[in-house]
């Protein structure tokens, strides 16, 4: 990382994930007049996380629109806009405030292409700031990805790095399918060197990335838990474990190839996410990895997840969120005895 700073070409400065996301929308709007941003407070205010900052000023209120306060209305009108050939990028202000739009999402957005035999695809991006760790009061920290994953017809994408924030959001907006784009709230202010004028190309939606190669075991994770797993892998070296970290990047489509290749290499895996464990994404991931890699597994695929409880109040959230220790505890339970 320190060398990266030295090698940086001009224009590469530290940028936050929020800035990269803003830039992705900006560039998409500049490149394609059919891209429209809409949501609560996205215009004049630039969004409560400032992710749409400056878009209304630059592209006008008709391209970046402050809507009335009604999420089903926002997504529902976006459906109509997409029917007419626009490419709406919808912001849901917080995870839990996307729930009023659930019927529109499940019954229309996810199915319109299929219902019409491809006659009416809906290239809608639904941006959802998600997850906890920001000290939010109730209803501001839900990890709602399990709901979206269980809905065929949606892509479910979530960046963990600044580069991916830009690259995946550009791809999501360009996609002819609806994409639920989950933005890890607590990574909005995470920084990395990044060039807004020559953003690095990233792997497409549907490909996972090995963020850290390793031989002992594979941590399978995404979004806000990627930095946690990187830190855990770092810490694990002290215990003699060389952990691999796979960042899924997209939950749908799921990159079985990359994930299973990793697990086959290491023979052990832990899935890590913030969402509650029961019925959460980890079940699917563990199950499909096991189906495909059963005879390579030295131990069952374990899961480190949020507890099966409503998201806790700010002062208690750190006990709920899977942290480095909990990841390492799970790694320790991967039946290493068999090894020796």
């Amino acid at each position: 990382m320190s060398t990266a700073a030295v090698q940086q070409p001009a224009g590469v400065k530290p940028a936050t994930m929020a800035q990269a996301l803003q830039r992705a929308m900006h560039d998409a709007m500049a490149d394609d007049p059919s891209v429209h941003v809409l949501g609560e407070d996205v215009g004049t205010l630039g969004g409560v996380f400032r992710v749409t900052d400056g878009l209304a000023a630059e592209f006008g209120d008709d391209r970046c629109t402050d809507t009335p306060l009604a999420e089903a209305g926002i997504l529902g009108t976006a459906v109509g806009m997409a029917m007419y050939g626009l490419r709406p990028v919808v912001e849901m202000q917080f995870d839990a405030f996307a729930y009023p739009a659930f019927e529109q999402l499940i019954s229309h957005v996810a199915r319109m292409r299929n219902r019409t035999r491809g006659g009416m695809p809906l290239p809608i991006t639904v941006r959802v700031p998600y997850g906890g760790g920001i000290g939010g009061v109730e209803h501001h920290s839900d990890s709602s990805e399990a709901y979206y994953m269980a809905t065929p017809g949606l892509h479910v994408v979530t960046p963990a790095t600044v580069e991916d924030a830009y690259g995946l959001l550009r791809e999501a907006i360009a996609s002819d399918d609806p994409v639920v784009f989950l933005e890890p709230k607590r990574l909005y202010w995470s920084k990395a060197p990044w060039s807004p004028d020559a953003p690095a190309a990233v792997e497409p939606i549907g490909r996972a990335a090995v963020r850290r190669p390793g031989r002992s075991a594979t941590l399978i994770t995404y979004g806000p838990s990627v930095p946690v797993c990187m830190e855990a892998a770092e810490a694990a070296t002290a215990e003699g474990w060389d952990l691999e970290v796979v960042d899924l990047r997209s939950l749908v489509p799921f990159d079985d190839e990359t994930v299973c290749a990793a697990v086959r290499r290491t023979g052990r895996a832990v899935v890590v996410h913030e969402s509650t464990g029961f019925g959460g994404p980890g079940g699917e991931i563990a199950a499909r990895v096991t189906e495909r890699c059963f005879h390579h597994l030295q131990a069952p695929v374990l899961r480190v997840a949020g507890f099966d409880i409503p998201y806790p109040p700010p002062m208690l959230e750190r006990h709920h969120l899977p942290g480095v220790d909990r990841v390492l505890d799970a790694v320790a339970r991967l039946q290493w005895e068999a090894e020796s």
Partner: protein
Amino acid sequence: MRKSSMSVQELPGATAYRPTPPPAWQPRTDPAPLLPDPEPYRVLGTQAAGAVDPELLRRLYRELVRGRRYNTQATALTKQGRLAVYPSSTGQEACEVAAALALEERDWLFPSYRDTLAAVARGLDPVQALTLLRGDWHTGYDPREHRIAPLCTPLATQLPHAVGLAHAARLKGDDVVALAMVGDGGTSEGDFHEALNFAAVWQAPVVFLVQNNGFAISVPLAKQTAAPSLAHKAVGYGMPGRLVDGNDAAAVHEVLADAVARARRGGGPTLIEAVTYRIDAHTNADDATRYRGESEVETWRAHDPIRLLERELTERGLIDDDGVKAAADAAETMAATLRERMNADPVLDPMDLFEHVYAEQTGQLREQAAQLRAELDAEGETR
């Protein structure tokens, strides 16, 4: 007097006490013009009928007759097992037909499950209109080709779509109006509210047609709303509400055409309540005798949309027996063709299940498609 820390004099910007209204207060629109008339607007049998183009009346008549026949034919097809289900619009043909005729070709129609007739009157192939209800696919036509959104089952969810589409068209500078249809029951859904609010705030070129047919399945209007009329809801969004006799095709057409013209010239949305009646049960699967008496239905049969229009045409000499016969014959021909075409089994490919879930099939779906393919092949072998 010792100044307390809370005394208001300390507030910045203090000025003399004025018993004035709050600063921001200025009603933004006058509610009076938004309120519907106290009685449903009517044309047939009134002075106003004389002003209507006779050719329009004759056209409406032919379409009503055809529409009724379409309804009876579709209902018959359910009995023959050729339709999974049919929500008939018998008795509501004036609304269905007027909705279709009030639009230009470039405009968009947003029908509910009950509005296949509106789509057919707009020119859609009846077989395509009935695909959903036959059960071989969901939407049986290309919405963009016909500018007819998919028949919508989740109630009122099509209304924000219509608003978004109309808004998008306006932003693009296109002269396109969207007409969205919904039932009395559907007005209770949150999506109705959100759609109308967005439409008014955006001044979108959209017209909302509520067919108040008295029931939401078994639930009568009195359990659905306590409002003076459904059209009165308009004022709460800042758009005009119109109330019309939904069985008077000329009146419905006029009110719709006015609203469409208003939307087209940038005047914004309109909410129209057409007072009508669902003569048949909710669908063929429903048993209406459980919740309403035959005498109520009889009263409404006497106010039949075809009867109303036929009398007008006959009494004013605008149609002769040949005209009546020609309309009936055309309807019969349509019905015979429909019957015949619906009696053929649709050709289905189970592999279509995996098409159009995404623009590109995912690896996962390819695996599953292969599984089904293998199953079908094995089935074929053992057959």
